[in-house]
């Protein structure tokens, strides 16, 4: 299969998954509103006791306002949580690179490995037609991996682990960098921010359900003190039971929503990886190098994992799986190495490749095969 066929298929599947995610969000919002409606309706008499209404009309208007306002409150709050997350995540590429403890590589660096990296990034920038990002190295990471970040061409960053610099030869490094340029070219940084924002909105519902079930989690004090709050809330004030019911329902909606959102996010991410692999081959016209880089990772002891905890938020912009997940086949951000190798280069013989791969003299020979 040619790279253009693979690209077209990955794009088609991505569009379908994005549509699915949007539909899921709409369904969740509607369900939340439906859950809230009876709660609002039955809690109204408790509220109305404290309000002076002159006429029946005024009463009806107030009831309507209470229900509509209450039903819209949660989706609006969830939206606010999403927007906060966008604001939090859309700090530029440089901020991201610094937060993950990377060091900037300048154009006239002396270290031969970094010099080669800089040159390779420049080559791929020409091949992909994407403006040159600034180049960074994560010195503390031994895993063979790389990622890009940044929402516009001016401040995008290309961050590579020290492990990748040491373990890969020039052609393999070029394939990895080409893959990352595809993430820049196809707008995956923006997509990542949007997906994480949607998740933040859903997680907000989960957090809110906890508040509904037990609003006094912040209360300090002895067990007796807490027991007092418990009795007061659930025995003396029956409204506590209403809150509990709504909280449990919200928790249900939130948990189901979160499960499917994570599922869709992971499969969308895997499609973007296929797209990026195919685009890497488009830029380098060298499928062997991409398959070689993947085979090299498979054979190495260090793999692609990133130690820094901030990697989770960027996991789908990496070259390989950066964080461990449960139930790999459902929640992995990247397809398996085998799958990617056979798609990049059908019939590729990893063993034969690793025996005769070219090793340049500047490579750090202390890195050993596992």
């Amino acid at each position, binding site marked *: 299969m040619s790279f253009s066929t693979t690209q077209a298929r990955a794009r088609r599947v991505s569009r379908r998954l994005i549509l699915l995610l949007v539909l899921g969000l709409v369904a969740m919002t509607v369900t939340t509103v439906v859950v809230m409606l009876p709660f609002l309706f039955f809690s109204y008499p408790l509220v109305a006791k404290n309000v002076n209404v002159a006429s029946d009309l005024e009463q009806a208007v107030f009831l309507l306002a209470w229900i509509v306002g209450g039903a819209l409150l949660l989706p609006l709050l969830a939206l606010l949580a999403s927007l906060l997350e966008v604001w939090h995540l859309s700090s530029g590429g440089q901020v991201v690179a610094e937060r993950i403890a990377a060091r900037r590589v300048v154009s006239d660096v002396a270290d*031969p490995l970094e*010099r*080669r990296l800089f*040159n390779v990034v420049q*080559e791929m920038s*020409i*091949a992909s037609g994407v403006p040159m990002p600034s180049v960074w190295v994560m010195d503390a990471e031994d895993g063979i991996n790389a990622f890009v970040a940044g929402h516009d061409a001016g401040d995008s960053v290309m961050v590579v682990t020290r492990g990748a610099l040491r373990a890969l030869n020039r052609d393999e490094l070029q394939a990895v960098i080409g893959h990352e340029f595809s993430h820049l070219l196809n707008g995956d940084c923006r997509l990542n921010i949007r997906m994480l924002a949607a998740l933040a909105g859903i997680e907000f519902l989960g957090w809110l359900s906890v508040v509904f079930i037990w609003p006094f989690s912040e209360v300090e004090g002895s067990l007796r003190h807490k027991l007092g709050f418990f009795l007061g809330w659930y025995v003396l004030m029956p409204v506590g039971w209403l809150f509990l019911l709504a909280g449990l329902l919200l928790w249900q909606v939130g948990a189901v929503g979160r499960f499917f959102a994570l599922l869709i996010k992971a499969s969308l991410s895997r499609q973007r990886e296929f797209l990026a692999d195919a685009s890497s081959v488009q830029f380098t*016209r060298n499928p062997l190098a991409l398959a070689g880089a993947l085979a090299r990772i498979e054979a190495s002891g260090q793999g692609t994992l990133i130690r820094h905890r901030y990697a989770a938020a960027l996991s789908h912009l990496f070259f390989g799986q950066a964080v461990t997940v449960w139930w790999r086949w459902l929640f992995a951000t990247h397809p398996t190495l085998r799958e990617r190798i056979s798609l990049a280069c059908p019939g590729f013989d990893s063993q034969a490749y690793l025996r005769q791969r070219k090793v340049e*003299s*500047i490579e750090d020979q202390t890195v050993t095969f596992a």
Partner: protein
Amino acid sequence: MSNTMFMILLAALVFWLVSVFNGLVLLRNRYRNAFAQIDVQLKRRHDLIPNLIETAKGFMAHERATFEAVVQARNRAVQAGAAASAQPGDANAMQALVQAESALGGTLGRLFALSEAYPELKSDQNMLGLQEELGSTENRIAFARQAFNDEVTAYNTRREVFPDRLFTGVFGFEAANLMTATESADERQPVKVSF
């Protein structure tokens, strides 16, 4: 009534002609810019060669003739580059540039082949760095050439499709040439690898 119809049709025609013209201008500027990218990398290659010779001279003093061949080939390539960037897409200028560059590549290849006999030169840090830079520059030239050819193809296609092709001659948009491999005997030879 028919007058109004006529005016509307005329306006549509003018609008269409303007969009054809502007589209061609856009594509022509794109391939010219793509050529400028090749030009940048060729200049980079030309600038690296004096450094290479300076470094290599210290180790292989007896290869005078080879050094001179490289210098001459470089100077010819610089001239051909200047001529081609004056009129990118012109068939003759492109051909001359490609020939001069491949001749330069040939002499450089000979120099590197000879350097195999000088172990101290091969392990010299300066030389290793220069080899990386030259290798990277070759790659960039290849990628920039690919991009240039893509842009030229887009321009030529737009120029040749019907009905646009009826007017491209009137507007004076001439066909641009791809940068293809040369017909020189050197490049047609199968690559030999020996250890």
